[in-house]
């Protein structure tokens, strides 16, 4: 089952990136055809090699992928059909019961809603702010280097640390944020950012955006640097206004970078664990959990410690992100850009 779940996305990603030909036949056919998605605008893979030689060069990579990614994926699927004791010992086959339990879970709707809000909000806000920020950082000004370094810090800091730091800064009693807001007379009484249900998700999204911006801004910055300056010269000569230049030239030329950053962000943000787990630690149940922390808590933190059910939720998670990425790629159709 996992073998198919691992292959089917490849099949469905295939047509998006590679166009109609089946992935299998592509490999045998000469890779220099226009259908080869991996080297548009690039040099052809010139030499031929037998699969024996190839196995030598790719062997280690294949071993690592199959051994530590594919095999655990299969182990996950196997676990999802079994019943385990609280200590993690296998009790017997569970059939589809674990899946049924996940689908019938009281908090499933809440968790799904949280997941969608978290994913859409963090990715959208991150991309928009990063676009502006990259544009700013591409300009020449004094101290630019320092600003670029400063942005690196949230990226370099571990997510758990940043999450713990924000837990403290958001705190109702001891949080610096409340002191600041009170002193500036923005609020009259402290806000319970992490305890008040109306604020919890927004507070988590803010941290999610904060830690996602550095990587995204850097990808955009790299994209901006790749745009040749003569394009802008031409636009200036033609009398384009700055806003027109941005809308008609910069954004379209930045499209590949936006695609790459959005897809990678969707994957990272969906799989993001420490922020939600840490900021949400005090709240009981699954009211503010996304499907990732939900699955984890089922196995390791909830009262029942249900490994089988957690595995079933994990299978749903993998399928969910594959589905989202595939749908996104179908909608934006990146045949041209995404190699």
């Amino acid at each position: 089952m996992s073998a198919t779940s691992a292959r089917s996305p490849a099949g469905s990603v295939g047509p998006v990136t590679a166009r109609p030909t089946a992935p299998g036949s592509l490999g045998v056919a000469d890779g220099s055809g226009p259908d080869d998605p991996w080297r548009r605008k690039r040099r052809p893979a010139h030499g031929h090699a037998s699969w024996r030689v190839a196995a030598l060069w790719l062997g280690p990579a294949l071993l690592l992928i199959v051994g530590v990614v594919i095999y655990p994926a299969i182990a996950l699927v196997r676990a999802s059909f079994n019943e385990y004791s609280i200590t993690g010992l296998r009790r017997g086959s569970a059939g589809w019961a674990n899946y049924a339990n996940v689908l019938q879970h009281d908090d499933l709707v809440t968790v799904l809603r949280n997941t969608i809000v978290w994913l859409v909000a963090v990715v959208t806000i991150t991309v928009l702010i990063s676009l502006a920020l990259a544009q700013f950082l591409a300009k020449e000004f004094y101290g630019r280097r320092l600003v670029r370094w400063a942005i690196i810090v949230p990226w370099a800091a571990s997510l758990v640390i940043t999450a713990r730091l924000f837990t403290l800064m958001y705190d109702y009693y001891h949080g610096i944020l409340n002191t600041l807001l009170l002193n500036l007379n923005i609020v009259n009484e402290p806000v319970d950012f992490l305890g008040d249900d109306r604020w919890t998700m927004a507070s988590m999204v803010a941290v999610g955006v904060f830690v996602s911006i550095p990587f995204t801004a850097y990808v955009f910055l790299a994209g901006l640097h790749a745009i040749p300056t003569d394009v802008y010269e031409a636009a200036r000569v033609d009398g384009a206004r700055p806003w027109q230049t941005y809308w008609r030239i910069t954004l379209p030329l930045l499209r590949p970078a936006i695609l790459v950053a959005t897809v990678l962000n969707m994957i990272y943000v969906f799989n993001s664990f420490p922020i939600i787990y840490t900021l949400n630690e005090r709240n009981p149940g699954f009211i503010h959990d996304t499907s990732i922390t939900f699955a984890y808590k089922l196995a390791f933190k909830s009262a029942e410690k249900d490994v089988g059910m957690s595995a079933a939720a994990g299978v749903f998670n993998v399928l969910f992100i594959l589905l989202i990425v595939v749908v996104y790629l179908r909608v934006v159709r990146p045949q041209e850009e995404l190699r």
Partner: protein
Amino acid sequence: MTAVPTSTRAPARATATRRPVAGRSSPRRFLLPLGGLAVVAVFLGPYVVMLLDALRASKDVLRTPATFWPSDWQFTTFNTVLSDTRFLNWLKTSVLVATTSTLIVILVAVPAAYFTARYKFPGRIPFLFLVLVTQMFSPTSLVVGLYRQFFELNLVNTYLSIILTNSAFNLAFAVWILHGFFSAIPDEVEEAAHLDGCGRLGTLWRIMLPLTRPGLVTAVIFTFIAAWNEYVVALTLMQDDAKKPLTVGINSYVTGYEQNWDQLFAAAIIAIVPVVILFAVIEKHLVGGLTAGSIK
């Protein structure tokens, strides 16, 4: 805070540098650095709070209402943390795991990326799709599967288990970036090397690798950071306190039983500094690496 000298020195330097866009009004010279200062404040602000929290007693951290400046400065915390054997053990694990994983990723990804970029062979496209799909799998969503696997192999609580996990899940990105770089190198370069009697390995080592340095740098940094900051798998697999990496270990400074916020944050800063320095050193390569490798 750190940016103050910049803004005061800004006008002097701004007049010295020639601006490519002629005729721009002077307000921009002040506005842009000012905007930069605001950006620095937003992104560094929380970490400045963290530093100031590391420099005061834990009780002071939990004062109501919170104050920005410490009421009493306490500089001993960094010493306390650095002489704490628990901390040194976690640091050792982090260094060991991050460097070994990075090494493995590079050793495994370079041949794979090079070979798929330069040679046609049966199974090439399926392999590249496999890599693309792996990028979507995260250790977090597979954590139960990983746990079951390492449990069966009796590898729970070993360095090997988290080293392998970090290597495997960062491989896709490295192959992806490096593949782009190898593909972009003109054939002629390699042909010349072949004519001069270089074998495949020799060509890769002496000719191709130096040409892909920005890509290598990007791959190394991404892997190192990801491994250095990995949390979920280490949290699940490493039960022996001495074997925990920093990300998991330092959380025990603040638990239900003891609340050493000063030590937590001092330890956190010690963990961040090397990474930021590493990043700052290669910042220029990073922009180049992301450009040529993944976008274009």
